[in-house]
C-alpha cells in the first residue's frame, strides 16, 4: 500500500439502534474498535452487518445511539476521519473509464494532485493498461479493483468493506486478500462484513457475530474466532 499519511483512528459505537418502521436492523449495538484493528462482522443475511457499516461510514443515520471516532490515544475526534468504503456494489460509473472515475472522485475529495494519485492507484491495483477502458467493459474482479482504488484515494484511516469478495473468482479473492493484508499492516482500521469463512476472513484480528441486529459473540469477550465464522456459514 502507499506510504501512510493518515492518523490512526478507532471507532466507538454506543447503543446503536436502527429501525426501519417497526423492524430493528440494529439493536443496542455497543462496540469499540481500536485504531489499527481488523474486524470481521459475520452473520446471516439481514443480521445488520451492512447497516452497521453504512452507519459507521455516515451514509445512514442511527435511530438512536452515537458513533464517535477516536484518536490513537483513545480520545474522541471532533472531525470524522477520511473513510474508504467498498461495498458489493462497485460505487463507480460504468460509463466512465477507470481513470476518469478515479479523477472524478479525487477532484471531489479535493486531493492535491488528482492525476498523480489516480495514476499511482491504478498501478497499485494492476489496471494501468486498462486505464482508458470503460468500466462497463470490465469483469467483476476488475470492477472491484477500481472500487478499491476509489476507496483508497483519500488515504483513509478507516476502511469499511461490505462483503467485498462477493462475486469474485478464486484469483480475484486471492488478490483481494493480499490487498487486505497490506491495508491491515499499514495500520488502518478495517471493518468488514463477510458471509462466510474465506482466505480473507483469516486476516482479521477480531471477529464479531451479529444476529437479528444484535451482537451475540465477540472474540474480544472470549468467543472462538472460528466458531463465529463457522456459524455464519451455517
Amino acid at each position, binding site marked *: 500500500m502507499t506510504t501512510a499519511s493518515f492518523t490512526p483512528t478507532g471507532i466507538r459505537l454506543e447503543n446503536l439502534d436502527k429501525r426501519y418502521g417497526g423492524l430493528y436492523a440494529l439493536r443496542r449495538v455497543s462496540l469499540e474498535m481500536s485504531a489499527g484493528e481488523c474486524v470481521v462482522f459475520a452473520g446471516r443475511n439481514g443480521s445488520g452487518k451492512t447497516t452497521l457499516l*453504512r452507519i459507521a*461510514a*455516515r*451514509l*445512514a*443515520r442511527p435511530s438512536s445511539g452515537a458513533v464517535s471516532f477516536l484518536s490513537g490515544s483513545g480520545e474522541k475526534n471532533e472531525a470524522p476521519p477520511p*473513510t474508504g*468504503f467498498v*461495498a458489493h*456494489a*462497485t*460505487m*463507480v*460509473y*460504468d*460509463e*466512465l473509464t477507470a481513470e*476518469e472515475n478515479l479523477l*472524478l*472522485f479525487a*477532484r*471531489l*475529495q*479535493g486531493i492535491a494532485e488528482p492525476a498523480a494519485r489516480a495514476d499511482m492507484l491504478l498501478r497499485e491495483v494492476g489496471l494501468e493498461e486498462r486505464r482508458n477502458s*470503460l468500466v462497463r467493459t470490465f469483469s467483476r474482479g476488475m470492477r472491484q479493483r477500481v472500487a478499491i482504488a*476509489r476507496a483508497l484515494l*483519500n488515504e483513509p484511516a478507516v476502511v469499511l468493506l461490505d462483503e467485498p469478495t462477493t462475486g469474485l473468482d478464486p484469483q480475484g479473492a486471492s488478490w483481494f486478500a493480499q490487498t487486505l493484508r497490506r491495508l491491515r499492516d499499514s495500520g488502518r482500521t478495517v471493518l468488514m462484513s463477510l458471509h462466510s469463512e474465506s482466505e480473507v476472513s483469516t486476516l482479521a484480528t477480531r471477529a464479531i457475530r451479529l444476529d437479528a441486529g444484535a451482537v451475540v459473540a465477540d472474540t474480544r469477550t472470549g468467543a472462538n474466532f472460528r466458531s463465529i465464522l463457522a456459524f455464519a456459514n451455517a
Partner: protein
Amino acid sequence: MALLSNTAVLLGKELRTEFRSRELLTTTVVFILTIVVLFSFTFDPSVSDSRRFGPGLLWLAFLFAASLMLQPCFLREQNNDTLSALRLSIGDPFAIFLAKLAANTLFLLFTQVLLLPVFSILYNVPVLAAFPQLVLVMFMGSLGLSVTGTALSAISAQARMRELLLPLLLLPLLTPVLIASTEATAALLVPNPAVRWDWLGFLLAFDVVFLTALWLFGEYLLEE
C-alpha cells in the same frame, strides 16, 4: 468555492456520461418530436389556431419530456450505489443537486431549441422574430421544471412505486410553471411579440423558492 468547483466537476461527469450513453437525449428528442408531429397532422391547425394552442402544446410536450428525462436522474446513481460514493466524497450534497439541475436544464433547453424550428415549420408560426426572448422563456421554464423535478426525482428514487410517484408529484407542482411559461411563450408568438416580464418574474420567483428549499433540505432527501 468548494461547492462551485464540486458542482463543475459533477456537471462535467453528467454531460460526459450522457453524451456517451445518449439515453436521455435520444429518448426525449424522439418523444417530443413525435408529439409535435402527431398533433400537427391530427389537427392541421391554421396560423391563428397555432398561435392560440401552440404554446400550450409545446409546454405540455416539454412537461412530458421532462418527466421522462428526470426519472432516471437519481435512479442511475442507484445502479452501482454511486450516490453513496458521491456523498462520501463531498462535504455539501447541494453540489450533487446543482450539477443534476444544471445538466437537466441544459438537456431540456437543448431539446427545446431543437424543437422550435420543427414547430415553426409544422405549425406555420414564425419564431425567428423573437428567438432570443423565446430562448430566455424556455430557459426560465426549463429551470423551473428541473429544480422541482430534480428534487422530486431524489425523493421518488428511494420509493417503492418510483415510476408512478414522480409524475404524480411532478404534474400538480409544475402547473404554475406551465401556466407562466405558456403565457410568456404565447406573447412571443403573436405578430407583435412582447416579453411578459410579469410571467418571467413569476418564473424567477418560483425557481428561487424551490432552489432555496433544495439548498435547505436537499441533504435530507439523500439520506437512507
